[in-house]
């Protein structure tokens, strides 16, 4: 095998991919060839490094130089300066990747990575996900070998139980117990499934794991198959994740070639196979019973439980269903032992959790933190704070099923139980940060709009109830709210959560309930004073020209699409409120910032 003196790791995750990392890789290869370095320097496309905000990211080893926002035009300089002459191109380094004395920091020293603990993401950004050998080099398939040759199925289950691992899909059910239920269920055939139908707006944890480390999921599913007595696995992934699907298919191909999937794995009498099932992107298919219906080829609609999947799952057979991130933890637990895993986290939530940081935050990206880390640490240390020095207002966890966490709870340690206590939930890991410019009523309306759109329509509380709630919220945000609307919302919310068929419906009112709990005054301001305190809801805003600042240039009048602005040049202009459609065009055109919205 060729030994290279330097490796250039280019992120090939979805974020960096869409900001042009493919071009970067192409130019790297061209330039290396031009300088005749192709036998000394290797270019590797890896999974997500997590710091998507400053992508495309390039790391050059052995120096560990962390380059950020690399464009194809920057590559010739890196090749001729760094790779040929050994001079790191300082201007292209990520600002937090250099010490004061200008030497490169290792990843653990960077503010963004310092508080992180990468278990599920341990290989993301380190290995080439399309090369099984690299996965094996980092102890891949060793856990499977150990399980098949040294452990009984019961021992595997006991190990997982002892680790305290809980489902990372959101509900937090103890994983070991789920495995045990499925193992004990009677059936001639059993299935192991992986839920990769990640649907929360803004969430991309599972996607990044599948793109960056597909083998870890395959290996864990095979281990699960051995533990529960299944010989067939299905990964249910949405078709809108093309890179993840492609890398998964390659990984399955390679594992089969090596005999790590298929008949008689490691010379034992255990056989296991994995197939991919593509989902069309319906949110409800992330719900376990709907997901299984979809795998079978039926319409993705939930059904009442019990029977639970462990008794009656795919094709009516006992089925184990875990989320991608849950699987990504398994091999580490087997190799290092459950005690090691238990050391991380809080009393009832062990290990780490991956979050997709988004919204108004400096370091948008993917972070993995030990359970018990506070929201303040995530937002202000790892996340680098809020752009423009704005004030933190709330963070939304759990997507459309979760709730918001206001500033007063910034210091709550994040784990399954503490989040439920403050009216939110862990969810699959989307974390959207909102600042003072976000209207909480509008946020609730946004999430409800999503659930209304995604409701499968099978049960009436969800189909009709969420729609009614959305209508009330639309009324409030358009300035037509009346006394009693809040109470109506509350009654509807309670009815829906107690009567809907599946998790999607039961949790749909959560964003409304939690914003009502912490930001009731904003709802009241919308209804009583017809004002949106954050200045978001268009219908409640008024655009006015500040006379003192207006120079009478007339640009605003020219840009107004409905001719609502009039005045004479060189004297202050005026907006006719009756005609104004509140599009904001004038405000963005005014060179003197003389137009304000109130």
């Amino acid at each position: 095998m060729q030994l290279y003196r330097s490796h250039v790791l280019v992120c090939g995750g979805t974020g960096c991919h869409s900001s042009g990392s493919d071009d970067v890789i192409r130019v790297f290869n061209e330039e290396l060839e031009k300088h005749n370095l192709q036998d000394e320097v290797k270019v590797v496309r890896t999974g997500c490094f997590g710091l998507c905000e400053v992508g495309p990211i390039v790391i050059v080893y052995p120096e560990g130089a962390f380059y950020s926002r690399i464009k194809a035009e920057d590559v010739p300089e890196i090749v001729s300066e760094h790779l040929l002459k050994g001079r790191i191109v300082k201007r292209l380094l990520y600002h937090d990747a250099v010490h004061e004395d200008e030497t490169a920091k290792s990843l653990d020293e960077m503010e963004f990575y310092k508080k992180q603990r990468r278990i599920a993401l341990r290989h993301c950004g380190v290995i080439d996900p399309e090369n099984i050998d690299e996965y094996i080099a980092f102890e891949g398939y060793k856990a499977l070998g150990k399980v098949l040759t040294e452990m009984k199925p019961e021992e595997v289950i006991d190990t997982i139980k002892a680790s305290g691992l809980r489902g990372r899909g959101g509900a937090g059910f103890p994983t070991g117990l789920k495995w045990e239920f499925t193992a004990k269920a009677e059936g001639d055939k059993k299935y192991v499934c992986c839920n990769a139908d990640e649907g929360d707006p803004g969430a991309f944890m599972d996607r990044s794991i599948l793109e960056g480390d597909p083998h870890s999921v395959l290996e864990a599913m095979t281990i699960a198959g051995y533990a529960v007595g299944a010989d067939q696995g299905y990964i249910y992934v949405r078709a809108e994740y093309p890179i993840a699907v492609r890398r998964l298919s390659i990984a399955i191909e390679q594992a089969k070639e090596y005999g790590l999937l298929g008949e008689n794995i490691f010379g034992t009498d255990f056989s296991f196979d994995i197939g991919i099932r593509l989902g069309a992107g319906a949110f409800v298919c992330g719900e376990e019973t709907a997901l299984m219906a979809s795998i079978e080829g039926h319409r993705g609609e939930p059904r009442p439980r019990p029977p639970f999947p462990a008794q009656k799952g795919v094709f009516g057979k006992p089925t184990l269903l875990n989320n991608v991130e849950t699987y990504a933890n398994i091999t580490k637990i087997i190799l290092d032992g459950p005690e090691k895993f238990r050391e991380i986290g809080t009393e009832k939530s062990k290990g780490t959790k991956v979050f997709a940081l988004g919204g108004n935050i400096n370091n948008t990206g993917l972070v993995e933190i030990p359970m018990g880390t506070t929201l303040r640490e995530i937002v202000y240390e790892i996340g680098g704070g809020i752009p423009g020095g704005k004030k933190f207002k709330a963070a939304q966890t759990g997507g459309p099923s979760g709730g918001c966490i206001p500033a007063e709870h910034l210091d709550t340690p994040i784990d399954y139980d503490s989040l439920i206590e403050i009216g939110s939930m862990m969810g699959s890991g989307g974390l959207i940060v909102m600042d003072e410019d976000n209207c909480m009523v509008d946020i609730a309306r946004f999430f409800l709009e999503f659930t209304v759109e995604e409701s499968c329509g099978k049960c009436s509380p969800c189909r009709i109830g969420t729609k009614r709630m959305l209508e009330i919220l639309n009324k409030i945000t358009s300035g037509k709210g009346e006394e009693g609307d809040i109470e109506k919302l509350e009654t509807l919310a309670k009815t829906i959560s107690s009567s809907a068929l599946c998790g999607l419906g039961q949790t749909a009112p959560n964003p409304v309930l939690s914003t009502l709990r912490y930001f009731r005054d904003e709802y009241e301001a919308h209804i009583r004073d017809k004002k949106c305190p954050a200045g978001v809801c268009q219908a409640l805003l008024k655009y006015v020209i500040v006379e003192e600042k207006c120079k009478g240039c007339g640009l605003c009048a020219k840009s107004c699409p409905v001719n609502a602005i009039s005045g004479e040049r060189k004297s202050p202009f005026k907006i006719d409120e009756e005609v104004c459609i509140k599009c904001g065009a004038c405000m963005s055109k005014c060179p003197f910032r003389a137009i304000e919205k109130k």
Partner: protein
Amino acid sequence: MKSLEELEEIRKKTLESVNIRTDRKNTRVVVGMGTCGIAAGARPVLLAFLEEINKRNLNDVIVTQTGCIGVCRLEPIVEVYTPGEEKVTYVKMTPEKVRKIVSDHIVNGQVVKEYTIGAYEEQDK
């Protein structure tokens, strides 16, 4: 895949090529590759290091380069950093010298005194 041994073999083989990506503390060979170094023949020296290290499976040795160190008249210059020991600077390097340095110094821990900057300055007097 029929056995754990087979897996271990693949692991070992590939690890050599990927463990460059982990933060390690071990022997580092730094070749001066400023304009002066390149002009004096640093590239064949660098390639010789890679070849020797490859041949001997020394997978914990890093070969990297740096810019001009400042004594351009003694190029090609190579510095060898071993953890816990003082850095050794070799001057006027050639591919032949590389082979001896790898076998004596890097593998057996015996600094090749006659090639070091100290020895050269002595002679020069």
